[in-house]
């Protein structure tokens, strides 16, 4: 494994598969040095309601490999809400071709834009009662989304070209089920926006537990 062991604490557990075909990959990602939570920016005039805390940072884990091609695409509609002056969720993984809704649930204007190469867009400013605007992400990559009005609001959308992906919990734990047997590149997108890669092999009916 060529990934930095201090960043990724993962192990492979081989075990009886569930009802579905394929193996399971699970493990724990050591969430790296966090960027400090944005402090209250002290807007003047103040926001109508208090700014709510951002979600705890999490990591994205996804598996890339030819064997993944047999898995059906996950391109359903996904929502990123603007609620409590935060994007929720603040980090999201989607497969290419997914469309994301950006409903504004706050009582003030928000703006959603991104200058990322993955998808450059600007939804302009809109209010709660206006129709939520949508963006379809066709290209794999990382998209950073901001609100031009509230400089503390950030969101990261990781667009991957595989349906085998998940988001860790706040402790870094993850599990990907129903993984077709085969060779994979397992990639972890950390809160620091670094990506670490490791090569794994998944066998039929086995649980792969990743260890450091």
């Amino acid at each position, binding site marked *: 494994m060529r990934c930095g062991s201090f960043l990724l604490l993962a192990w492979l557990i081989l075990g009886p598969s569930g009802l579905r075909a394929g193996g399971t990959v699970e493990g724990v990602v050591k969430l790296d040095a966090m*960027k*400090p939570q*944005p*402090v209250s920016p002290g807007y003047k005039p103040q926001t109508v309601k208090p700014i709510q805390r951002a979600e705890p940072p999490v990591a994205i884990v996804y598996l890339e490999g030819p064997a993944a091609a047999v898995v059906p695409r996950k391109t359903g509609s996904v929502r990123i809400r603007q609620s409590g002056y935060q994007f929720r969720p603040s980090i999201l993984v989607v497969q290419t071709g997914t469309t994301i809704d950006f409903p504004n649930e706050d009582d003030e204007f928000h703006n959603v*834009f*991104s*200058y*990322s*190469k993955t998808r*450059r867009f600007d939804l302009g400013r809109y209010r709660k009662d206006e129709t939520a605007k949508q963006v379809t992400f066709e290209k794999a990559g990382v998209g*950073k989304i*901001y*609100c*031009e*009005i*509230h*400089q*503390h609001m950030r969101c990261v959308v990781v667009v991957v070209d595989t349906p085998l992906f998940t988001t860790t919990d706040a402790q870094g734990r993850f599990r990907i089920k129903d993984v077709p047997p085969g060779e994979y590149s397992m990639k972890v997108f950390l809160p620091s926006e670094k990506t670490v890669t490791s090569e794994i092999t998944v066998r039929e009916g086995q649980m792969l537990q990743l260890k450091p």
Partner: protein
Amino acid sequence: MTFRTRLLASIVGVVTATTAATLFIAQSQNAASYQAVLDELFRSEVESFRSQQEQQLTAAKTEAAKLAESVRLFAALEEGDPEVYQTAGDELRLAELAFFRLTDAAGVIIPPPEGSRAGGAELDAVLAPQLAKIAGGEPLSNEDLQIGFVASPNYEGGVVSLVYCPIRNFDKTVGGLLIGQPLRREKRAEATKGASLISGLLLGEKYLPHFGGEDLGSDTGAMLRAHVEGGEAAMPTWEQELGGRNYRADSNLMNRGSRFAPAWIVSLYPLDDLRRRQRELVRRIAVIGGIGLLAAAGVGFVFAGRLSKPVHDLVAGTAEVKRGNYDVQIEKRTDDELGALADAFNEMASGLALKERYRSVLQMVTDRSVADELMSGTVLLRGEMRDVSVIFCDIRGFTAISQDMNPADVVAMLNEHMSALTQIVEKHQGVVDKFVGDCIMILFGAPKSYGHDAARAARCAWEMIRERERMNATSNRPLAIGIGLASGPALAGCMGSEKRLNYTVIGERVNLAARLCSQAGQMDVVIDETTLADLQPEFKTESLGPLTLKGFAKPVVAHRILKVVS
């Protein structure tokens, strides 16, 4: 050195010292006041520059602060968006800026696209290293605006002022924004208007004067730079020679704390004109002082002459008086104090002359020592009892001798005789009391005693006899004398009427001396017992036995001096 020379030297010295002191005070006052004026000029210039710069920078600073918080600019820089200049331009809207630049996180200038509002392409090469240095240091916060200056002939005034701020969102610096505006110095401060003050910015080794100073020389910047870097803190002002002229220079760092290359405002004040005026002032004071000196010397010469002549006269007169010439009179030249002094001197000299005449007369009519005692006032006019020795000496057979002589010859003979004997008396400190015809009365021990008066009187009498014998040996009229000597208490004092007094002694011993004189044989000295008691062994005497004398109830024992052994 004479009084006149000293007086003249003093006057000239005082005038010279006064002129020198005036010169010194004028010069130091002048230097201090011009230093204060220059300091004020420099201060006003820097103040004016700072306030104008502050005014011009306010807009740029506001824009920079606004953009530093722009989420769009942050996002565009973070993503390296190709339209970042467009984004920045939109955010700046219509702000009036000469140019602006965006840099990445490492301080490298992001090249502006064709036709953007960014402008100022010619400065990129100059700015690149400075921006890299700024970004290379400790991370700057959004408030850490960096102020700098750069020379550019493309802008009015030749200098562009720069504001740089990092573009940063919370913890992450994604790049920076640089805003440039031409540095305009439209007006001078009120205080420096009309002054020949040159002021400008020193950037690197370039000096860019914005007021005055067209031909300071090409190496001005390098020379100023060397000084400013060497002693900026310790010596804010100094003297600088530029292009053959001297200046007073003052430097102030305009962007303290900035990571941009340091920019100093350097003000220069030409000293040549100031120095020329100072030299002119010194020359004038020196000329006035010189004229004053000449006038003082002239007046001093005349005055010293007028003062010293009477003083000189006085000195000469005093010397004459010292020599005994009391008849000296000095010329009264003025009616002032010196004239009064001359009068006083003349009166004093006349007084002395008169006194001297009195003394001479007194000495002629009485004995010299009595005259001296009388003059000194030690003689008691009421009389006193003294132990005295009295000599009477007369010429034997004088009546017979003088009978056939004409009076003039008698007087001449007597004078010769008396003079010779008087000299002997004086030699023995005796006092000639009086001449009575051919008789001399001589006192010892009055008016004052010299000790052993009786012995001295005896020796005097003996020598008088010897002197007469010597005279007789050569004289065609030999005279025989006889001497009587008696000692004892007698009343001494000035006696006579209220208008005429004689100093003399009276008493029984005086009478005895006169009687003994009549008893003495030719060329004999007859003395009484009292005198004999006082004589030393060198006197050889013989007793004459008791003599019956007129006026004395009892016979008196007398002695004759036989010889005196030398």
